[in-house]
């Protein structure tokens, strides 16, 4: 049977799509599978979690793990802690994380905006070396700074405070934020500010009334990325914090894993809670993340 040209083309396209969709499905299983497994386990009862072979989805979904880590089920927490675990209420840690990350994000953009402006709009001899210096600082591994900064913080008595984390995190968020913002500022045509100068603005007024409003998307994206970076941070958090006074959610989540035994329903419920804000934020700033990656200017 001879098919018409149109049918042949349609069939070929359908076949192509089918193949691509199969490949995409495999990719999704690889990328999302572990996340699915985390969510699914956090909703399983203890009995179901230890099924062999495992259940692929919670047959009897329960929020007991979330109730437990939010402190609504002290009996369960006491019971698992009696078996050598250190499960505790995650609320204060979540609050610490939010506090830390919001402070970091605000401090970061406040420091980074003026610096970024200087690279985008002023001509000065040290412009390039300074920008490169920021770039280099961005690549310094956190571990290099952990000991010396620890000594500094101990000297000024800031160990185990949110302030200490804010101080340290900005060291890493500021350089990449300057980088991102200056490249965003450069995309805003300078003619707009020139028009404002002719219209009677000084340089500062023009920057505030014309450039900043136009840079809002870039500033929001930078804010979110700084927030995400400090939310996810672990090394400093685990080194500089000792109590729920300042411990962040990543530290608490990791502490749920015992040496001998682990209640992965509780651990992964904490994992889900720690991942949720970055997931949502990542989807919001997706476009900027992609642009930032492409410029090689983001923390990987």
């Amino acid at each position, binding site marked *: 049977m001879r098919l018409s040209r149109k049918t042949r083309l349609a069939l070929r396209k359908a076949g192509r799509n089918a193949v691509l969709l199969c490949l995409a499905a495999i990719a999704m299983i690889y990328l999302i599978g572990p996340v699915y497994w985390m969510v699914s386990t956090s909703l399983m009862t203890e009995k179901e979690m230890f099924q062999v072979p495992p259940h692929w989805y919670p047959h009897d979904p329960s929020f007991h793990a979330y109730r437990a880590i939010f402190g609504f089920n002290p009996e369960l927490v006491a019971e698992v802690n009696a078996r050598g675990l250190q499960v505790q209420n995650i609320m204060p840690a979540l609050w610490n994380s939010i506090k830390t990350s919001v402070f970091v994000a605000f401090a970061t953009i406040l420091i980074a905006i003026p610096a970024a402006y200087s690279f985008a709009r002023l001509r000065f001899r040290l412009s390039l070396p300074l920008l490169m210096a920021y770039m280099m600082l961005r690549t310094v591994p956190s571990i290099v700074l952990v000991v010396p900064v620890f000594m500094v913080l101990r000297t000024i008595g800031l160990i185990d405070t949110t302030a200490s984390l804010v101080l340290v995190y900005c060291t890493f968020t500021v350089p990449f934020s300057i980088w991102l913002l200056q490249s965003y500022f450069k995309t805003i045509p300078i*003619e*707009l500010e*020139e*028009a*404002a*100068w*002719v219209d009677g*603005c000084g340089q500062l007024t023009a920057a505030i009334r*014309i450039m900043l409003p*136009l840079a809002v998307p870039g500033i929001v994206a930078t804010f979110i990325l700084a927030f995400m970076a400090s939310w996810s941070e672990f090394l400093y958090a685990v080194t500089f914090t000792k109590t729920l006074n300042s411990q962040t959610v990543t530290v608490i989540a990791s502490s749920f894993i015992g040496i001998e035994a682990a209640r992965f329903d509780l651990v992964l419920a904490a994992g889900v809670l720690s991942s949720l804000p970055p997931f949502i934020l990542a989807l919001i700033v997706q476009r900027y993340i992609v642009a930032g990656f492409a410029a090689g200017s983001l923390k990987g």
Partner: protein
Amino acid sequence: MATIEISDLHKRYGAVEIFRNLNLHVQDKEFVVLVGPSGCGKSTLLRMLAGLEDVTDGTISFDGTDVTDLKPKHRDVAMVFQNYALYPHMSVAKNMAFGLRMRGVTNAEIEQRVAAAAGVLGLTEYLERHPRELSGGQRQRVAMGRAIVRTPQVFLFDEPLSNLDALLRVDMRAEVKSLHQRLNATFVYVTHDQVEAMTMADRMVVMNNGTIEQVGAPLQVYDKPANVFVASFIGSPAMNMIRAKPSVANGQKVIRSDDGLTFPHPKNNTGCEGGLIVGFRPRDLNVVDKDTSGAIEAKVEIVEHTGVETLVYVRAGSHKLCMSIDKQEWSGLGESVCVLPDPANTHYFDETTKQRVG
């Protein structure tokens, strides 16, 4: 009242010299057009008038007041940018009001002035829109509106029409011109388009490579180009140019090119000892009878119809000449014709100095 006096102006970026020793006087209420190829420094000059570029040396004064080192906001100028530079986050009304607001004009007056300007430009129904919701022509109007509400002494235009399509450009050309008559202010207008310059200017300033080549009324520049550059830059299609030397033929002083084309000697004899460049516009080249004295024999190579006129490209000796005649069918491809430049409109330039000699 607003005269502009530019004296001994220099501009350099680092080691790159944009221009030196530029002098220009613009009279009150004059419409001056700076025209020249890209990179000639015309936009830089305009931006220096606005205060957007630093002056390396020299002075600029408005009405006798030295403004050389004044910031843009302290000069009473308005500028229309090439890409309009409308504030994307403000409505049309806010865009037009911004300059007034920055200068502390009262709200009532702002409203009244914006409404008036919008009326003049036909923007009344678009006042609440944002720039992105407007067409190119409307944006262009808003940019002009933003300038005129301020009623400054000096209006600066940086190629404001170059982003419009050809038809709209012709309309806007007339509109800018009538705006000038209505506003009674000094206009300085930059363009690379010689037609725009010719049609709009009271006086045009032809620039090239950072120097002013000629200043004059459009027809004066067209009829008496001061040098080879102006001759070739103004007028389309471009003027025919032939290198030639004084010589004698049949006992008469003539000008002769290497390949034997001869032209009458310029009337005033000065400076004709060395090489010359003979120029005549395509419009001034005519088909003549074979036995007309001075007729040049040529072969028709290409015929182009533009609609209004017909362009005939002929080869004479080693030169390719362009001749513009009234619209007509021309079938004589490859045939020989005799052509003769109109002696009254033949231009002579010194080969070394490139300056006009007759």
